[in-house]
């Protein structure tokens, strides 16, 4: 209550100050959708209060990355959970708040998983992704759907937009990728210009890998003598996946457009499982299909009023089977449906003052079937409403302030209100140096699994609350021979009422409880630079470092009180070095080297020697050539990942691939 009051007071105070300042200039208003048509480069002053971490375009294509999850390893403050291999689940955890506090948006609309609240980012291919952006707190743009104010960390995936030069009607893309572990990954895409303003894109991709990669476990005695040293091949890690997408874009006026996107993903994979003593193969299989249709319409009136409508329908199907007769037999089918509607409005009251109001509604349904039992499927439903109000002030480019309030109502639960305040101060008009800060609260609602899982569910769960405090210093400079972006952020997050599995009564019957407090102190450092050298050489460097102290403050009686929470390293970081040479004809040749480091961690709550997990670091190298021949564009890329073949684990007992190779041939017309 007090917090809400403070926010309102603060907003009032700022409004008053705004009047006093008199004339103020507000950058951009309706350019929101236009901006994403244009390549935002480092030379443009950032419009965001909280500068997102971004990977886009060529830089993204030149990294050794196969999926969105691979790309996110290059962001600071992010920990990737990777179970290994092409088919292994990959989820991310932003600033140690837990992967369920992270929202992932595909072309502006959140990807949902009401069942477990996590999005497997290993499923999203980068082939048709134009940019990956990570916003801590929230996208500092008040014109957004209500739900976007809700998550603690946000990842925006934006697919490639068709771009036609005058007279062009069709573009074709074809790509073949092959590599270690029988990786075969052909992709095909077509862009059609149907009318002057209406275009259609079609994308399809197939992915296969047998997942049979060698791994090694070695232990030594304190004397240095080898205790054991064994190499085996990962089994049951095969994957077959097909992705097909269709997009329709219609820009009918300078201000208005609509888009329609249909997405379909189907996969059948093995779950290779944990490697434990005497078990080198597991028999779990997973088949799933994710389908969604989403639409967006946006327009603007009187240069002052903008409206955006979003709609989505998703239908996801998961079939899990355990064929390992040594284990609990399982044959479960889950069907999820999601319907989502968002209505967002923005009013530009003055040039320096914007207001927005948005309402979102979502319906979720889950059907759970145990095919081993003759029982009827169980059904679970959820209705969620979000209502957001936000305001933004810009004072002469010096100070920008945004405040938002989100009310979330899930089913019959008491609606909860969470505020967010974002502030940016730029002391020098000619220097792009800014001090950015935010405070934000966000709830993570219990998932269907938390609530209703057999033996495990607890319908009385409260949502988990994350409070974020963050201060950032950001600096950008664009000069003739270099572009530079530096940032340093300190944050303090507190997660309370953390939903954790807790044993209930006796004999391994678990339940979910609101039983956890985690305090997180973190520092993110980023340095990004492009150096334009003579003879058309370009050098790109990207450096990021993350320090995180994420400690458990649940109960002083616990043996792990104040211990670092599982799988959060104190130190992690990455370094990328890209070297590109452009010929006079416009061909490109270059290489890209990247180093990723994750420091020591613990796999359980207690930070003891028995739970210690070694640091890991990999060196990846890629070589490429790009050729323009008339209207054809050709690219060849060779990647060597884990160059020195480190035997590492991100998650304990899930070995990662040693050195592996991928090569890609891409063609565009």
């Amino acid at each position, binding site marked *: 209550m007090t917090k809400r009051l403070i926010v309102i007071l603060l907003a009032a105070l700022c409004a008053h100050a705004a009047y006093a300042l008199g004339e103020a200039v507000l950058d951009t208003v309706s350019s929101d959708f236009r901006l994403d048509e244009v390549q935002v480069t480092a030379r443009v002053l950032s419009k965001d209060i909280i500068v997102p971490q971004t990977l886009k375009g060529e830089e993204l294509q030149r990294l050794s990355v196969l999926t969105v999850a691979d790309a996110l390893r290059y962001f600071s403050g992010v920990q990737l959970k990777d179970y290994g291999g092409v088919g292994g689940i990959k989820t991310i955890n932003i600033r140690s708040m837990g992967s369920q506090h992270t929202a992932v948006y595909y072309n502006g609309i959140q990807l949902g998983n009401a069942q477990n609240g996590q999005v497997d980012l290993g499923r999203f291919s980068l082939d048709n992704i134009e940019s990956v952006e990570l916003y801590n707190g929230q996208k500092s743009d008040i014109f957004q759907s209500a739900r976007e104010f809700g998550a603690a960390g946000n990842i925006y995936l934006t697919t490639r937009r068709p771009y036609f030069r005058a007279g062009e009607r069709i573009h074709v893309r074809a790509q073949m990728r092959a590599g270690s572990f029988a990786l075969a990954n052909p992709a095909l895409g077509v862009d059609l210009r149907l009318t002057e303003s209406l275009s259609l894109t079609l994308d399809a991709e197939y992915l296969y890998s047998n997942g049979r990669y060698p791994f090694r476990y070695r232990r030594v*005695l304190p004397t240095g003598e080898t205790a054991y040293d064994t190499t085996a091949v990962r089994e049951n890690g095969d994957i077959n996946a097909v992705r097909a997408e269709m997009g329709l874009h219609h820009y009918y006026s300078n201000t208005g457009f609509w888009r329609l996107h249909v997405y379909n993903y189907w996969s059948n994979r093995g779950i290779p499982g*944990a490697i*434990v003593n005497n*078990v080198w193969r597991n028999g779990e299989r997973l088949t799933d299909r994710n389908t969604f249709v989403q639409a967006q319409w946006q327009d603007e009136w009187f240069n002052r009023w903008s409206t955006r409508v979003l709609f989505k329908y998703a239908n996801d199907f998961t079939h899990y089977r355990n064929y390992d*007769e040594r284990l609990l037999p399982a044959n479960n089918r889950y069907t999820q449906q999601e319907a989502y509607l968002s209505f967002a409005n923005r009013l530009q009251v003055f040039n320096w003052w914007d207001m927005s109001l948005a309402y979102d509604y979502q319906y979720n349904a889950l059907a759970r079937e145990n095919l081993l039992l003759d029982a009827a499927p169980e059904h679970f439903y959820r209705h969620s409403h979000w209502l957001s109000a936000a305001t933004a002030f810009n004072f002469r480019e010096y100070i920008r302030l945004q405040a938002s309030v989100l009310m979330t109502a899930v089913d019959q639960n008491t609606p909860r209100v969470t505020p967010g305040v974002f502030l940016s101060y730029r002391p020098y008009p000619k220097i792009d140096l800014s001090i950015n800060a935010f405070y934000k609260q966000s709830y993570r609602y219990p998932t269907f699994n938390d609530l209703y899982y057999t033996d495990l569910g607890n319908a009385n769960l409260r949502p988990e609350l994350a409070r974020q405090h963050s201060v950032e210093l950001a600096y950008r400079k664009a000069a003739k021979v270099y572009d530079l972006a530096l940032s340093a952020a300190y944050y303090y997050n507190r997660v309370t009422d953390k939903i954790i599995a807790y044993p209930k*009564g006796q004999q391994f019957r678990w339940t979910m409880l609101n039983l956890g407090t985690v305090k997180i102190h973190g520092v993110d450092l980023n340095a990004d630079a492009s150096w334009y050298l003579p003879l058309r050489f370009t050098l790109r460097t990207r450096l990021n470092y993350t320090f995180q102290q994420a400690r458990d403050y649940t109960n002083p009686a616990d043996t792990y009180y104040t211990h670092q929470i599982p799988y959060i390293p104190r130190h992690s970081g990455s370094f990328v070095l890209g070297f590109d040479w452009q010929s006079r004809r416009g061909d490109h040749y270059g290489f890209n080297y990247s180093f990723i*480091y994750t420091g020591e961690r613990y796999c359980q709550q207690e930070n003891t020697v028995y739970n210690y997990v070694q*640091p890991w670091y990999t060196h990846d190298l890629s070589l490429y050539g790009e050729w323009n021949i008339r209207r054809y564009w050709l690219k060849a890329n060779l990647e060597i990942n884990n160059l020195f073949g480190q035997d590492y684990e991100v998650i304990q007992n899930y070995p990662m691939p040693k050195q592996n190779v991928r090569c890609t041939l891409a063609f565009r017309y």
Partner: protein
Amino acid sequence: MHTRFQILVTWSVLCILYSVLLTGCRGEDIVYPTIGTHVTDEVREGGLYVLCEGNMGSNKARLDYLNLYAGDYYANWYGAQNPKQIKELGDVGNDLQLYGGRLYAVINCSHKLEVMDHLSRHIGQVDIPNCRYVAFHGDKAYVSAYVGSIADPDMLGSVYEIDTATLSITREVKVGHQPDELCVVDDRLYVVNSGGYLTDRYDSTVSVIDLASFTEIQKIVVGLNPTRIRVDNRKHLWVCCQGNYKNIPPKVVIIGGPHIETPCANIAIQGSNAYVMDGENKRLRAFSTIDYSEQTQPIDISSYEHPYGLLATADALYITDAKNYVSSGVLHCYGYDGREHWTARTGDIPGHLCRIAEEYDLHGDTTPIQPSSPYISRVYEYLPAMGQFVNELPEYVEGDNAESMCRKCEQSIANNAGGMITLGGWGGYVTFGFDHAVQNLEGRDLQILGNAFYMTGSTEYGSSEPGIVLVSRDMNKNGLPDDPWYELKGCLYDDPTTDHAFTRTYTREGDTLQNPFHNHPYYPQWISEDQYTLSGAKLAPQTQVISGQNVQRILDYGYVDNKPNTDIEGTSFDISWAVDADGNPVSLPTIDFVRVYNASDEILGMTGELSTEVTGAIDLHINN
């Protein structure tokens, strides 16, 4: 200026990253040696193995060992003993048993029965899919297993028979759904069928298997979801049924007896009591196996987070707290009086406990020693006071020293040799020990032999040359009798005539011939010093002249060389008599060293001084 700023920032970032890399490099994955944590000063014989289950998929099954003798807890004992086992002990330890001198651990998600020697050194393994518990009969082990094909609509489990000599599966029998604990009674194997995989359709039977034909001959209906079965001292079976966690409550079913309505996470039977762990209400209940009535039971486990493992032995109850199941647990040891003796921090989910008795020498790192001998194995010290048989019993030869005199004493009195040594005059002593610690059990523990005899026709008088007994525990574990001594309180301890603080110095100078029958030095010749001082208690003279003979009054109890060896009780001692220097009783579970010194100080003319003779000693708890 900005350029300088940029450089500064860039360099600081680089420096931080560099320092991180420098300290954050990956090392070798080391198999850590286990380090003992001292948890108690109380000494018991043998040890206790603790199998910590570890969470599924974590590969953290861990076998810990508590050396009860030294009071040290060794985490990851198996890992240290078997560093070459690939991926260690395995995933989810589900049962641990000692049988025929070997340890058997059932590792559920590693699908194996791990077979170890009593020091937990790997001998072999038997692959059994989804194995749960193990029981034994003759030379066979029986392992229950959840194994059941997904294609099999019933998903019936099995019991496997394993030849313990060859470690191979010999036979298999299908039982009910998800069989758990099992036990053997009179050539029949009883296994509970839990139905644990069939939520809401739990099994409720016990399968009876005839071991000769290895077929299921009967299914006894007990109660819903039976998970544990134990046999009591009257060969009755106690079955813990967990119910369905909803409307059907848990209960303990005694086959052929009553039902007891109680949650029963675990059960242990000791003597005529069955201890039932009520995990839901966090209490330990005891029921009589005779009339099934509830007994008062003082152990309080209400402060536990999740009571889990339970073991009842003759002298202690061991109970574990699994905490939140994903962090280390705690092992508690209680006496039956409810007193908590000590606690030890374990691995994750300490579930299964196995007491190793004293027949294994687990203190060292070697193989088990020979079965204990009841006789003296070693003489540590021998220092007689000046006396007429000194240098004769045993005989001193030129060149002997204290060490060689001890060996000569051993030749006389160790290993039931039947010889004799003298302790000389007042204060002379011998210190000896056995090849094991002598336990302090009910009644007399130790017999010490001498050469006393009764006067003809009397048991009140005779030849009594009383020696006082001191005992000691090897507290510092150095194998030497340099630890505190405690006197075994004899009948004259509280007598006002007893001088408890007597000392006397014997000198070489004072060694003048006192008895023409023993024409040799009385001073111990192997001592290089010219004098030595002895101290202790001195008893009042007991000699009387009866019928012209010097005879002594035979003391009631508690002295060496006081009653004839044929009177076993009269020549035996109870370690419970031990008192400290101030006379306070001391509770010693075991002792390692025994010292006997001559407490009489009388010289009787021609027969010389009264001198305690020792001819041997016997640990009364070792059968021979």
